[in-house]
């Protein structure tokens, strides 16, 4: 009896959550549906018309995907995106975790002031930096190179990554570190043997943030790479589909869905790290 009344009392909440989830996922479902429909269908009717006969597989086709992958150099763009995104994720998180440890557990003069400045950087709009950095890159010959893009993404990602990780490291029990220091650990040992293994959830969520941010980025890639096809990532490629192919909606949807695939895989692979409880049992009973 008790559980039934519990279900009833929580029903409105559950309905609200389901409603919100549906609302959020509808555009993506529409995109998927459109990308699987033949060109003439896409141009003549909306994607929701498939709901009239959802089990008729004859209305779907993989032509769009085949066309996009064959014609427009999407394979190269996909690889470019990987080349850009992976170092641009690993680099800032590695640097940020070192910095975050220092901010959380090492005493040095000016620690607080430095941290406040770093946090302040989070609110600086990156658009303000585009022109000065591009001029610098042209001077250094970094414009149009992967290295330039890695450095840019690292710089843009670091303030938030340091902020997030410092707060996580700082919340780890002080006793653990003191115990390790008494056991003979240096800061480096404490960082690698304690802070990092205990922060896997934070590192994983940070990695997801940064990966999605870089993968979906169009602005920075367009500005610093200058639209060179050899180095252009998926986002640049997809956006050029719009201009070069004009009204070819069916191709655009397929291209967009291809660019969404990897982030989805990454999210589902890492989402279990969001689950808490990895610290359970370290302190107290």
């Amino acid at each position, binding site marked *: 009896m008790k559980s039934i009344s519990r279900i009833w009392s929580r029903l409105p909440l559950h309905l609200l959550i389901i409603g919100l989830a549906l609302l959020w996922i509808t555009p993506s479902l529409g995109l998927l549906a459109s990308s699987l429909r033949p060109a003439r269908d896409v141009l003549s009717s909306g994607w929701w018309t498939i709901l009239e006969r959802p089990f008729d597989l004859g209305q779907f086709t993989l032509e769009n995907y085949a066309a996009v992958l064959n014609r427009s150099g999407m394979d190269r763009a996909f690889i470019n995106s990987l080349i850009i995104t992976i170092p641009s994720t690993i680099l800032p998180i590695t640097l940020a975790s070192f910095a975050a440890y220092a901010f959380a557990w090492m005493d040095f003069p000016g620690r607080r002031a430095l941290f406040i400045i770093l946090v302040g950087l989070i609110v600086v709009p990156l658009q303000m930096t585009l022109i000065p950095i591009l001029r610098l890159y042209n001077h250094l010959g970094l414009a149009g190179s992967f290295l330039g893009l890695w450095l840019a993404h690292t710089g843009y990602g670091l303030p938030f990554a340091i902020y997030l990780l410092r707060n996580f490291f700082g919340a780890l029990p002080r006793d653990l570190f003191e115990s390790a220091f008494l056991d003979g650990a240096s800061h480096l040992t404490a960082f690698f*043997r304690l802070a990092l293994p*205990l922060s896997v959830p934070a590192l994983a969520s940070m990695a997801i943030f940064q990966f999605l941010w870089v993968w979906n980025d169009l602005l920075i890639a367009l500005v610093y790479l200058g639209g060179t096809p050899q180095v252009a990532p998926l986002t640049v490629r997809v956006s050029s589909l719009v201009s070069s192919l004009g009204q070819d909606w069916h191709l655009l949807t397929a291209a967009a869905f291809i660019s969404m695939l990897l982030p989805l895989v990454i999210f589902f692979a890492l989402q279990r790290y969001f689950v808490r409880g990895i610290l359970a049992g370290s302190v107290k009973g």
Partner: protein
Amino acid sequence: MASVTYDHVTKQFGNVTAVNDLNLEIKDKEFLVLVGPSGCGKSTALRLLAGLEEITSGNIYIGEHLVNDVPPKDRDIAMVFQSYALYPHMNVYDNMAFGLRLRKTAKPEIDRRVKEAAEILGISPLLDRKPRQLSGGQRQRVALGRAIVREPKVFLMDEPLSNLDAKLRVQTRAELSKLHQRLETTFIYVTHDQTEAMTMGTRIAVLKDGLLQQLDTPQNLYDHPLNIFVAGFIGSPAMNFFPARLLGEDSQVYLQADSFRLKVPAERAGKLVNYRGQEMIFGIRPEDIHDRALASSVSQDAVVKAQVEVTELMGSEVFLYLSTGKQNFTARVEPRTSARPGKPVELVFNMERMHLFDPNTEERID
């Protein structure tokens, strides 16, 4: 194995003085307990010795070595934390081996020490478990084991029993004493619980507001507290205090309190000549108050009439919560007592075991 010396040690956090001019000499192989209410600086004193806090002024020696500027890992000490501070991602074996590995101890030696410590503590079957799979008592043993395998010169313990349930605490208390005898190492133990201090300590240092109040063996601390704070802190139930005036002449000396008058034994009276007519604080422990009906010999000059408010039967004894005049006090009597709540009772004070304190300085008068 080493002695430890605090030489005029002071620690300040901003404007707060946590430890104030502490002088302590802890002998080799001693079990010293630092006891006091929360915020008295006992944990800070321990952390100063561990090197986890920096000393504001003064010196700390381990053995003959001045350790003020020695980093924690080079002080050759091990510490058991109140929270146990086990490494949550390592199993029990790795938790215990961690310190030895960092010190590049040979593998077979690590293995031998870990297994031996596990044997002593009865946690051999748990070596593969993670801390979250252990009960509170088991975690506490692992924390002890982690200290034991290091074979340090000095063991530091910061309230290691306070997260255990009452029964386990009593049991572990005895085991810690056994462990101390077996390891023959200097133990320094911090607690706010006077029972732990009394049962385990070779000597006890009582602290209050960062100041050392008294350093002595448990028995001396109990029998001859140097001031009102120590007298009230050590012993449970706590000592009773009454404001009183010293009256009389020669060997006929009385303590006149609010609602009763008691004769001071002749041998104590002689030493109190200079205090005649003065106000003082009269202290007596609950077990030195007896039910008159059950007392063997009764001196008419030591009887106090009181009202029973509450009785607590503890099995082997009864605590009486009493009032006389405006004053409340506690007595610890035999369970045969006929005292009942709401009824008057006649009590006999054992004046041989009275304590007198100066009401201004709060120090003992002998």
